[in-house]
């Protein structure tokens, strides 16, 4: 037995007419085509990012990698998480968290890089070696004893 019919809801939903997706007034079932196309795009981007990591593009590497990851993440958020069709308030909340992460990352990195050059880096290997022999005693004894000639 399937109980899939919906006759009416308790309150007439003013949003109901505007949606008209599926059976319920507010359900937005994703289309299978959309789901699969997003999935295959994500797979292709994964292959792309693995391939580009085998190239040597120097300092641009991290930007390209993160760029591709951002596109993939964007696809997951907008389509799989349905944010594209969701209430804008949810999108605002999520975006604000990303902005705060950006602030967190940016300020911390700027701060650390700022004083890095003035920090004395003690090598862990060096630290594990036995201490160097003490230098010759200072000329303090010469002051107490009068040189004979």
């Amino acid at each position, binding site marked *: 037995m399937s*109980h899939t019919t919906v006759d009416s809801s308790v309150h007439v939903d003013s949003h109901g007419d505007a949606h008209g997706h599926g059976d319920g007034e507010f359900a937005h*079932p994703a289309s299978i085509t959309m789901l699969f196309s997003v999935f295959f795009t994500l797979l292709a981007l994964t292959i792309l990012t693995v391939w580009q990591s085998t190239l040597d593009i120097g300092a641009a590497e991290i930007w390209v990698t993160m760029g591709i990851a951002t596109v993939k993440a964007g696809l997951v958020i907008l389509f799989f*998480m349905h944010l594209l069709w969701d209430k804008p308030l949810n999108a605002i*909340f999520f975006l604000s968290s990303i902005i705060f992460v950006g602030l967190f990352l940016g300020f911390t990195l700027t701060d650390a890089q700022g004083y890095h050059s003035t920090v004395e880096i003690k090598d862990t*290997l060096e630290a594990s070696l036995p201490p160097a022999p003490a230098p010759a005693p200072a000329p303090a004894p010469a002051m107490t004893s009068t040189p004979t000639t």
Partner: protein
Amino acid sequence: MSDISIPTSGQADDHSHDHPAWLAHHFDDAEQQFDSGKLGMWLFLVTEVLFFSGMFVAYALFRSLHPEVFVYASQFLNAKLGAINTGVLLFSSLTMAWAVRAAQLSQQKILVSMLAMTLSCAAMFLGVKAVEYTHKWDLGLLPAGMYVTQGIAEPLHGNWLQILCIPAAVLAVAFAAWYLFALVGRNQFQLQIAGPLLVAALCFFAGVQLGVFLESGESHGAGHGAAHGDHHSDASGHSHDVHSGVVDHLVAASIPGQAFPNEVLVDPKRVGIDQPDINQRGRAGVFFGIYYMMTGVHAVHILGGMAVITWLIVKAARHEFHSKYFGPVDNVGLYWHLVDFIWIFLFPLLYLIR
């Protein structure tokens, strides 16, 4: 108030008021209930993003200050396994989104099977992860304080992979017994739950097999030509032999004057890194601390997600979801996609460093 012809679940309370069991008292209608739940879940996801961001900042900080450590340590990470895990997780996101669609369209059977596939993908991810972790433990690549530098002759005892497989094996046997019991008793409800759980437990081992197969082919592996730690092998002694082969290399490398065997672990000079002090607890050890923390916390989130998806399967088997009540499926879906979102960033940052 008019009646609603949406069915209530089998054990719904006999309410004397006029709303169905799936609509909580404090909501006016189904849509408001759904929107409120969704907002709550998005807020939780915000906290999750901030939670992970702490570890990402630690990563970024350490990498910006010691980039050479990351180049050195990344060779221990198997990018193939990482890529497969990425594919598995992306597929699990697809099946989860499909499950949400099925719930919205009141397609109960598709819903249960999609949730089952998501669970199985998660189990496979953990299986591959188990192989990755145990392989590192065999090589002494532990978090900072426990990091074993090359040439230290303290072997790590125990066939870790077999130990990790024990809980999964116990679960698999239990679920198989339950499934057979439900089959004999023709209990459709229990079959719909035990079946997915059994398949998921088996997929864990599929992941382990896949990981073992790919790990043994890696050039940086030290002397495990044969698939090591194959828990299915009848002679556990066999896997111990291969395991101790790895240890023998470690011991050999620590004896001064001994020539390094061909497949030795890592010689910093051969890698071309100038500073030999990278392979110390303060450097490479910290990298692995970050690696274990990020992937470990992520794996804990996967475990939590698996538990919640199991709960969803039970509810779905009770026919509780339909086109006006699918919030739980949708919200768990959001959580699951976030787990995927985190991994999308983890994978290139940890595995694809050159």
